């Protein structure tokens, strides 16, 4: 990380930006509804950004210097399966971390 200044720019920038997104209609625009095409795209922001963030990390993990790694792939698969079927974020992370730990010890 390149320093404290960058960190505070990120914290404050994200804070102001997030508040603006929350406040824009409630505080400023009032009752006029959003156009349906825009709402339709906004519904998919999280589910479009997060997989893009995580996919390269799973396929080319930084800890192995970018070499695909079976233990990390399995940990990701277990985490996803638990999260998808049980909907529990914490339990899914624990299951994935346990898988990673066990496979790193075994392999």
């Amino acid at each position, binding site marked *: 990380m390149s320093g404290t200044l960058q960190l505070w720019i990120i914290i404050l920038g*994200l804070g102001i930006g997030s508040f603006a997104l929350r406040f824009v209609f409630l505080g400023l625009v009032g009752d006029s509804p959003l156009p349906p095409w825009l709402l339709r795209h906004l519904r998919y922001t999280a589910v479009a950004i997060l997989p893009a963030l*995580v996919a390269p990390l799973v396929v080319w993990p930084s800890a192995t210097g970018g070499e695909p790694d079976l233990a990390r792939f399995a940990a990701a698969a277990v985490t996803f399966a638990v999260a998808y079927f049980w909907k529990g974020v*914490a339990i899914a992370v624990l299951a994935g971390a346990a898988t990673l730990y066990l496979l790193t010890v075994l392999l």
Partner: protein
Amino acid sequence: MPFTTTKSAFWAGFRAALPFMVVALPFAFLFGVLATEAGLTVFESLAFSVVVIAGTAQFTALQLMEENAPTLIILASALAVNLRLAMYSASITPHLGAVPFWKRAFAAYFLVDQAYALSIVKYEDEPDMPRDQKLAYFFGTVAPVCPFWYLFTVVGAMVGKSLPSSIDISFILPLAFIAMIGPLLRTPAHVAAAFTSVVVALLMAGLPYNFGLLVAGAAGMMVGARVELWQESQHG
């Protein structure tokens, strides 16, 4: 059943949000641990949670800082994750838009996933609820979640500080994202958006400045919206 007072509306919101504490606490704890592992101080971790108060965006920023992405890309990506907040703002405005300005400003700051989801369901159930009670219900849903969001960020940060640095937990953050994605895949349109996003992100991984993330995000959103339209036309 209509509430008799704003006070009972507040406590009804509070009770409805209690189960969400179980979700928010480990999340805040994990953020604290990973933030200190990434080199943040306890105070900086807490500032992150207080100023931004949006877990998914905080984790996104943390991950991209670890990858030494440029500041602008970090801000753009984390704010893109937060675009859904504008949707919450729009959809809750017909219910809270008429309360005094400063109360709307407070409500906007606390417009987090759990508070939005619980409140909008309640308002649609009982559209005739008086405005003051709607606002009280909203703040009731905030009360068991947000203060503990701050508190457990600090607890996590203190635990993270004391962890030996020899433990490699850099892969826990990707696992946390995967765990967040699982419950989001509610419809075929969500699955299509996520799948597109993965494929495009892997194809675009060579782009400089983590720019592939934004390209993949945009592609995923467009595919999700398209599939939703197509599904609607199928069902008439």
